[in-house]
């Protein structure tokens, strides 16, 4: 199918975006990589009257590190996340996750900011943002810039804390500490498919002891789930098969309200989440895959 007709604004500065918001209100929709929005438009699930293309706004590009924080521009492509040296050094969780996102041709266009703004519950990067304690920076013309913690940003399927007149401009990620480790895994039917269940993880590992874990599941509910019960259970515990068993039990509490989707029942998703938590804890503890 083909997209319904729309007007097209080629923005070269944030002021162009704000002008379009002012003029067209809710009729205006931002497009960056378009790898989620364009399919929705082609299938007529979305029909914005005005499309505002932000690909040529230079200030939305770039990755930089200052004072212990990695700033990633909203237009950073998934492909760039996978190969950028600063990202690999300071936020390796994103490097790991990037190759799980769709396929090379899609990763060349899709953007970090777009994935977060779109808030698909099956997407990898929202979970990584929460696991990394990321802060999302958004700008509006009337209120200026504000920062939103990733954990407060995702409100539901395709629903975020962004106001209609705001644009996501960058993401700040605390750089990984010397004793911190990250791990990422997902289960999908085929390479590049949406995950049936996925898990992004970060934590401090001293010897085999887990501290300050962040375990974030995706594709299990309408937004990424921070597994608080499992995290509390694992705090201060050494990695062992028994610890994994305890974590699996705690997971039942964290995931008790998860939803079945068209393809996978909640029971199956819970089972797959248990498989992932075992693998990811082993990886964090340096035990390799079980």
């Amino acid at each position: 199918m083909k997209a319904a007709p729309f007007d097209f604004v080629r923005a070269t500065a944030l002021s162009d975006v704000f002008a379009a918001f002012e003029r067209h209100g809710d009729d205006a929709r931002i497009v960056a990589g378009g790898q989620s929005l364009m399919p929705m438009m082609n299938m007529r699930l979305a029909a914005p009257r005005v499309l505002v293309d932000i690909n040529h706004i230079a200030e939305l590009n770039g990755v930089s590190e200052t004072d212990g924080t990695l700033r990633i521009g909203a237009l950073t492509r998934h492909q760039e996340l996978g190969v950028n040296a600063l990202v690999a050094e300071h936020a390796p969780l994103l490097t790991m996750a990037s190759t799980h996102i769709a396929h090379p041709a899609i990763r060349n266009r899709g953007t970090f900011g777009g994935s977060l703004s779109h808030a698909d519950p099956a997407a990898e990067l929202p979970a990584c943002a929460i696991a990394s304690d990321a802060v999302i920076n958004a700008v509006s013309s009337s209120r200026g810039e504000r920062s939103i913690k990733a954990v407060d940003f995702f409100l539901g399927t395709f629903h975020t804390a962004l106001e209609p007149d705001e644009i996501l401009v960058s993401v700040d990620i605390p750089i990984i500490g010397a004793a911190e480790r990250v791990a990422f895994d997902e289960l999908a039917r085929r390479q590049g498919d949406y995950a049936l269940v996925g898990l992004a993880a970060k934590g401090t590992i001293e010897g085999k002891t887990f501290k300050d874990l962040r375990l974030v599941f995706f594709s299990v509910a309408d937004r990424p789930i921070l597994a608080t019960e499992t995290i509390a259970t694992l705090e201060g515990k050494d990695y062992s098969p028994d610890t994994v068993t305890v974590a699996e039990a705690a997971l039942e509490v964290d995931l008790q309200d998860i939803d079945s989707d068209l393809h996978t029942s909640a029971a199956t998703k819970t089972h797959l989440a248990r498989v992932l938590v075992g693998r990811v804890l082993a990886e964090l503890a340096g035990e390799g895959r079980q």
Partner: protein
Amino acid sequence: MSDTLTVNLTVNGEKVSRAIEPRRNLVDFLREDLQLTGSHVGCEHGVCGACTLRVNGEIVRGCLMLAVQAEGAVVETIEGVSDSGEIADLQEAFHERNALQCGFCTPGMLLAAADLLNANPGAGRDQIREHISGNYCRCTGYQAIVDAIEAVGRKRSGQSS
């Protein structure tokens, strides 16, 4: 609503300037307006890979990019890389190994394969499968396609096949 916009781009080495309706995606523009019908239109929502094109040196989904987004871009299609001889070895290997039957996926498959081998001619079978995972073939079962890409990669990196 939806007035046309003038877009200037380079297609297979030729400068093109056209007034284009915003809703026209890049692959439709190439096929319908420029009669470059080598790129195919399959699913039209980014799943099948038949519309794979090269834009500014990187492969993209032609159905998920608007033609008006290609302002100033360098676009290459299967016609361009065929005429230049860049992928002659891949085309020959696909032919020799029966890596196509109906041929619908082949233009996209060749561009995805060329993208991989340009970056990493020594890619192993798993890397090949990963790189073409976004290109569906409903005829071959992929085995012959992987064989062909692997053979060309070996040849290009100086190993014997």
